[in-house]
């Protein structure tokens, strides 16, 4: 690992100043469960590492009533909230049990004790679990500059709508009527070979798929079928094309395409 300057600002404003002064390549550090391995492999060689840990108000979980015509409840999860905290949260378990279960299925206990929601979505690994929740649960990503619709957040392979120096502060997940996440874990890494999150909001159904493509995506055919009839049988005969899906040593694209169908059905069944 190359050495770097380490900074631990106490506020978002101080972090922004450090970004301005930090030269070409400062990076943020949250749980370090992705960044530290990347530094070790010299995939990243920043001059300055800005640790977000001392900034107050970036962790914790709360619920919020929507305003105006959007009266729905949202669960607000601070960017620095660890996977273990989301998995263990009474509020998340009560409002969006699928989100707690998703967090509980990330990596292993030690990774969950350090890794954070903000780090996971900022990193946008194509096989990460949280992106499926951001898309299927109508999330809104809040940063130190603006609020970004979840639908516009993931731009592609390890790519997001975040501008250089922009800090995710929280994610607002809309509380669905029902939701379930089903993951087929890659047995060595525990990342999703394929993960499918199905969520129902009144007449609307969302189906988000992670692990299978360059980035998380929705399956409109499944969503339409489930909106008509919310049952596993409604998905019979709906095929996802393997074109553009990932093929690697772990699984071929047609296998991933097949898994999407299987996992989507299981998720619908798990919704009850």
């Amino acid at each position, binding site marked *: *690992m*190359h*050495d*770097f*300057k*380490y900074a*631990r600002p106490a506020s978002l404003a101080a972090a922004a100043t450090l970004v301005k002064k930090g030269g070409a390549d400062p990076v943020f*550090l949250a749980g*370090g*469960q992705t960044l*530290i*391995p990347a*530094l*070790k492999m010299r995939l990243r060689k920043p001059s300055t*590492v800005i*640790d977000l*840990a001392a900034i107050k108000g970036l962790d914790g979980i709360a619920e919020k009533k929507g305003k105006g015509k959007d009266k729905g409840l949202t669960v607000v999860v601070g960017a620095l909230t660890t996977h*273990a905290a989301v998995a263990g949260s009474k509020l998340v378990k009560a409002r969006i049990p699928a989100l707690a279960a998703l967090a509980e299925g990330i*990596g*292993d*206990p*030690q*990774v969950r*004790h*350090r890794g954070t929601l903000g780090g996971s979505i900022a990193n946008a690994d194509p096989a990460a679990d949280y992106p499926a929740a951001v898309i299927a649960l109508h999330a809104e990503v809040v940063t130190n500059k603006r609020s970004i619709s979840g639908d516009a957040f993931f731009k592609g392979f390890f790519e997001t709508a975040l501008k250089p120096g922009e800090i995710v502060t929280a994610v607002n997940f809309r509380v669905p009527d029902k939701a379930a996440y089903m993951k087929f874990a890659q047995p060595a890494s*525990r990342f999703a070979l394929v993960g499918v999150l199905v969520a129902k909001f009144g007449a609307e159904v969302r189906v988000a798929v992670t692990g299978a493509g360059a980035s998380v995506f929705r399956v409109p055919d499944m969503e339409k079928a489930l909106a008509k009839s919310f049952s596993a049988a409604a998905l019979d005969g709906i095929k996802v094309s393997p074109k553009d899906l990932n093929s690697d040593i772990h699984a071929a694209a047609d296998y991933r395409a097949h898994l999407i169908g299987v996992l989507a059905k299981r998720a619908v069944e798990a919704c009850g």
Partner: protein
Amino acid sequence: MPRVALTVNGKAVTAEVEGRTLLVQLLRENLGLTGTHVGCDTSQCGACTVHVNGRSVKSCTMLAVQAASSAVTTIEGLANGTELHPMQEAFREHHGLQCGFCTPGMVMSAIDLARHNPEADETQVREWLEGNLCRCTGYHNIVKAILAGIKAMLGNAPRGKSAKSRGTSS
């Protein structure tokens, strides 16, 4: 060079480190606490597991500077003189090791489980060990040892208080 102040096994420690110094390097190289092992250095194996503020983490995947002001417990901080911690004793009793390389991480991970889910059954113990790899035992005796160790930690409840403060200082 950054200066980091933290508590390790109940003692206040300060050290000069580089930004890139890993917590496991601080423990092993600066403090001589070589019970914490490095098996993979790629965040997979869990041999480097220690407690930071009472929760198990991979010390190869945390910077020393990130542990500033924290309470760290390593395998060396568990025994009370010559009296082993109940979880260590259970690993010995149930032959939960062969070469012993993974053992410090296994024990630290197991104690975290015992504290946070003392009801854990065999399946939950096996799930919990997702991040701790052993290339010798086939895990069977490790699981047996952990189930027994959890019982022993609970059984020692009155003394368990002191076992607890020995085990993790938070």
